[in-house]
């Protein structure tokens, strides 16, 4: 039926060369500069990177959620079921958003309409996308709340968001997002606002739902622990670009980009030994009003070479399905990857 069903190796969502800008008083912010990624049915792609690097703008522009104006998608495609949803989102938006692609956000406390019953907020998507009657949709909403592990779902469905805790609200948000059994679920920092035990429950719930209905998940996070727990693949974003992509093992144990190495050293995670302190990355990301011609990480990179300043680095496939945007992997580069590892991890 769908492209992914016809060809099991084709990704469900395939984003290519996405560019997004914002007009501001200070000039044009080039927030996303040529981002490409794909994700397969039943798999999870994590997008990591420091604050402001363009993770949210990337996924929101795919969903047609960035304010336009001031926002603008200047280039790129996002293929879902063989349809470019970046181009089609106005015409075809109703069929895609909330139906083929579900989305959950960081702050569950403000993500639901305070004046509408939780059940009605789920039922609404089913009425719009499935043409269910009010009754049918509400009954299904109760089922979906049960799927999202909300106890006494039929009672809860009749309550308003203020009667829910933060964790419960995020479950309700998940219920809204999966009500129409989407092919792709986009989760933008779904657990950042929640406390640790609830975080684990929400992540388990997402995994569980994924096993059940085979959806692809795009998970944005700051937390490498969350990546290790959830993801199959990782894309590392820096200053509007994806600088490294690969399987979790490749990116965690055979990191090929200096920024990824810096990120691992700077972030607490289960892979950091206790005695090895955290090393923050010195400096700040480049100005996105005037992004550099060469490597975005040039000013902060401990391995920077002369070529990195003026010339944009190539996207090199260092291993099969493991890419890095860095001059170090150019055949003419003086240092080898193993040398790089030794230097950084010493």
């Amino acid at each position, binding site marked *: 039926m769908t492209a992914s069903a016809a060809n099991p190796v084709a990704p469900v969502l395939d984003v290519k060369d996405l560019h997004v800008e914002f007009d501001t008083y200070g000039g044009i912010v080039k927030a996303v500069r040529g981002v490409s990624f794909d994700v397969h049915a039943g798999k999870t792609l994590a997008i990591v990177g420091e604050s402001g690097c363009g993770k949210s703008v990337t996924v929101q522009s795919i969903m047609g*959620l960035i304010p336009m104006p001031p926002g603008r998608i200047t280039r790129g495609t996002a293929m879902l079921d063989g349809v470019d949803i970046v181009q089609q989102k106005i015409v075809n938006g109703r069929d895609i958003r909330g139906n083929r692609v579900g989305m959950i956000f960081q702050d569950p406390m*403000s993500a639901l309409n305070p004046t509408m019953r939780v059940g009605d907020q789920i039922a*609404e998507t089913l009425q719009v996308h499935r043409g269910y009657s009010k009754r049918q949709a509400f009954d299904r909403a109760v089922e979906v709340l049960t799927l999202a592990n909300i106890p006494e779902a039929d009672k809860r469905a009749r309550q308003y968001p203020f009667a829910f805790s933060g964790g419960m609200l995020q479950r309700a948000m998940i219920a809204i997002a999966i009500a129409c059994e989407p092919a792709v679920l986009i989760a933008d920092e779904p657990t950042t606002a929640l406390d640790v035990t609830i975080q684990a429950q929400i992540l388990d719930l997402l995994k569980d739902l994924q096993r059940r209905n085979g959806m692809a998940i795009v998970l944005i996070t700051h937390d490498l622990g969350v990546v290790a727990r959830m993801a199959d693949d990782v894309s590392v974003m820096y200053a509007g670009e994806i600088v490294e992509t690969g399987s979790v093992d490749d990116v965690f144990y055979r990191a090929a980009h200096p920024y990824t190495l810096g990120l691992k050293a700077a972030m607490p995670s289960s892979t950091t030994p206790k005695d090895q302190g955290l090393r923050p990355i010195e400096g700040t990301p480049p100005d996105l009003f005037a992004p550099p011609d060469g490597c975005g990480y040039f000013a902060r990179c401990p391995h920077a070479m002369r070529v990195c300043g003026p010339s944009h680095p190539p996207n090199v496939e260092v291993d099969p399905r493991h890419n890095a945007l860095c001059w170090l992997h150019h055949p003419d580069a003086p240092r080898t990857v193993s040398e790089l590892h030794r230097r950084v991890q010493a």
Partner: protein
Amino acid sequence: MLAYTFKRLIQGVITVWFIATATFFAMHAVPGDPLANERATTEAIRKNLEARYGLDRPVTEQYVLFLGNMMRGDFGISFTQENRRVNDIIRESFPVSATLGILAVAFAAFGGVVWGALTAIYRNRLPDLVITFLVILGISVPGFVVAALGQLALVDINAWLGFSLLPIAGWGSIRHMIVPSMVLGLGTMAYLTRLMRSSMLEITNSDFIRTARAKGLPPTRIFLKHQLRNAILPVITVLGPSIAAITTGGFVVELVFAIPGLGRSFVQSVQQLDYTVIMGTTVFYGAFLVFMVIVVDLLYGLIDPRVRLE
């Protein structure tokens, strides 16, 4: 909810008692004498009248008498209109004021919501700029000027048409009510428009609207079911004070348009120092406003589930 309603009603009764007491002592403090006109020509007549109205008793006794009568809902007899009970004056003229007020509040609330929503949708474009300009005009021009200008405009329109499209004064038919209620509601409408505009803009950027869009809902549904309902909440909170503003504004509009409402009776009673009518209408107005504020609070609870339980 029931306990909350009960608590609010008790508070309301205390407020009304306070208003009554303050009015009573204020009336006794003002210079002038309700009987200092042609009616009390001789000492004997004055004595007679004083006895009739209880003015020969000590102030505290008068106060107790007044409270007692008030609790039975009896405001006494007018000093200037022979044999007219204050209760009758209120009963006859209040429905007129209430009709005018309800029309004005409806006009203001409806207009405020519609214009506010429109200015938000056309933010910083021509319709927004034009309406915003009119709103500033509406807020800054005082009610009596608007009333006079409204009446003047009506005279001109009727003269230009050659027949009376709408009557310029008086009361009776729907046609009498249109212009005065619009004039009365105008300032409030301008204020509500501004409030609605900022509330709409705030909600456009809120997370739950983003959620609604991510759900793929059609824009009209997002607007009606998510945006409007939440944007109206601040408008409802100020509806209580708005009703107060329209009620007091009614004093002027009733005079200008010669409408036989309670506001006009009140103004006349003050001019004539008609002791009992002033007391009666003030307490009545006070009770009415206190009651309306409670009604608005309860209405708010109906729309915003968060306040229902508190």
